[in-house]
């Protein structure tokens, strides 16, 4: 498992593009928001938590189609499926690698981009906490979507159509934590619900992803 994780991380780092691309996308999206809604800092401060969450979510989505497609094309997935490691673990490791290379950098970059959007001071900690808790769910759900569409020629758009509705609960609770944090309100309820979603998704969804992957590898 660890070997697979290290391999995936190395590939993500060295293959170029994959690692920085999500971050760059996140940056550009955040920069574009003031252009579209106007530069009033009061308005930006209100929408900052939501925009940052949405940006992180879309940046996550952007790298999903590479998650399994490359391994599918060169036959690595077939080998992994016949390996002693159960496919459920493979899928989990893939999701973890995706989170480490996409989710975690986004979490770390979010406060910096928060400055650009004039995020209120108490919001920074909660933004980081909510993203830290929420982005693993995004990676795991995304892995399920990637497993569904891995055999398709043009899976990218379909992947977004399938995955984005499933991101709704995570986005709602995550953005709610960040918003309440920025306004200095109590955040424990949405944070607990967000953590619950993440935990449940990590516990259950790899089984669905592995089942789907087995069908696709048939």
């Amino acid at each position, binding site marked *: 498992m660890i070997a697979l994780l290290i391999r995936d991380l190395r590939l993500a780092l060295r293959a170029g593009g994959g690692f920085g691309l999500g971050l760059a996308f996140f940056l550009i999206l955040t920069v574009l928001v003031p252009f579209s809604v106007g530069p009033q800092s009061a308005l930006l401060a209100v929408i900052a938590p939501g925009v940052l969450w949405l940006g992180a979510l879309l940046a996550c989505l952007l790298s999903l189609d590479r998650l399994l497609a490359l391994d599918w094309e060169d036959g690595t997935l077939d080998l992994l499926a016949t390996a002693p490691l159960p496919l459920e673990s493979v899928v989990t490791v893939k999701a973890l690698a995706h989170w480490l290379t996409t989710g975690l950098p986004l979490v770390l970059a979010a406060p910096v981009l928060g400055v650009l959007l004039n995020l209120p001071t108490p919001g920074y900690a909660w933004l980081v906490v909510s993203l830290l808790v929420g982005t693993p769910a995004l990676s795991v759900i995304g892995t*399920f979507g990637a497993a*569904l*569409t891995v*055999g*398709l020629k*043009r*899976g990218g758009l*379909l992947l977004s*159509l*399938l995955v*984005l*509705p*499933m991101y*709704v*609960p995570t986005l*709602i*609770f995550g953005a*709610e934590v960040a918003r309440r944090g920025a306004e200095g309100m109590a955040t424990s309820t*949405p944070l607990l*619900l967000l953590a619950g*979603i993440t935990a449940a998704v990590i516990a259950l*969804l790899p089984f*669905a992803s592995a*089942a*789907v992957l087995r*069908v*696709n590898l*048939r």
Partner: protein
Amino acid sequence: MTQTTKLNSLWEYANPKKFLSTTERFLPGLWIITALCLVVGLTWGFFFTGDDYKQGSTVKIIYLHVPAALMAINAWLMMLVTSLIWVIRRHHVSALAARAAAPVGAVFTLIALVTGAIWGQPMWGTWWEWDPRLTSFLILFLFYLGYIALWESIEDPDTAADLTSVLCLVGSVFAILSRYAVNFWNQGLHQGASVFRAGAVTGADTAEKVSNVYFYPLLICMIGFVLLFVALVFYRTGTEIRARRIKALQARERMSA
């Protein structure tokens, strides 16, 4: 046992031939009863019930809105059940029925959303409000779209059936989750269920109960929509089975040629 000649199990309809012959026997009658229910219910509702004292004649959109919303959810529920049957027992008719039901359910969802918007404009003063019920219906519609798109984009029918079944199961969980997440996220403008609520039918709470004047035609419309859904799904499933057969025949021809 002596069951060899007269099988009474539901599973015998998993045989496509049996399914087709039975549904074909029932379909003409089913269409007629459906049309009758809808015509009677809608005519009664539209022309022979009085206007509401506050809402005027806009109240009459209830005869389309409520039954469509009812079927939008139940269609997904039916897809969930048939997907489960496919996953567990691998009956092809079941998977095809799920496929056949999806566009019908999507259209019902759209009808519910559009009629709701048309009613909401004069009543709430807005076409759209990010109300939990409205939002979750929109999300349900997105799930329908994704489901249909996945069916369309996979060539191998068995793979498609497997993948869409899993998507339906996982999607159901996320749809329910979204429903409650959305509830948490915004307070509602939409009224609560006022037709099939405990006490609503018996008249225990009269304040929010749909008046009997409106209830009876509404009930007929609901029955009509249920029957319409059943008839459409039977019809479309039959089409899917035939399309599958044509493919099999063509493949056989290619093999022998």
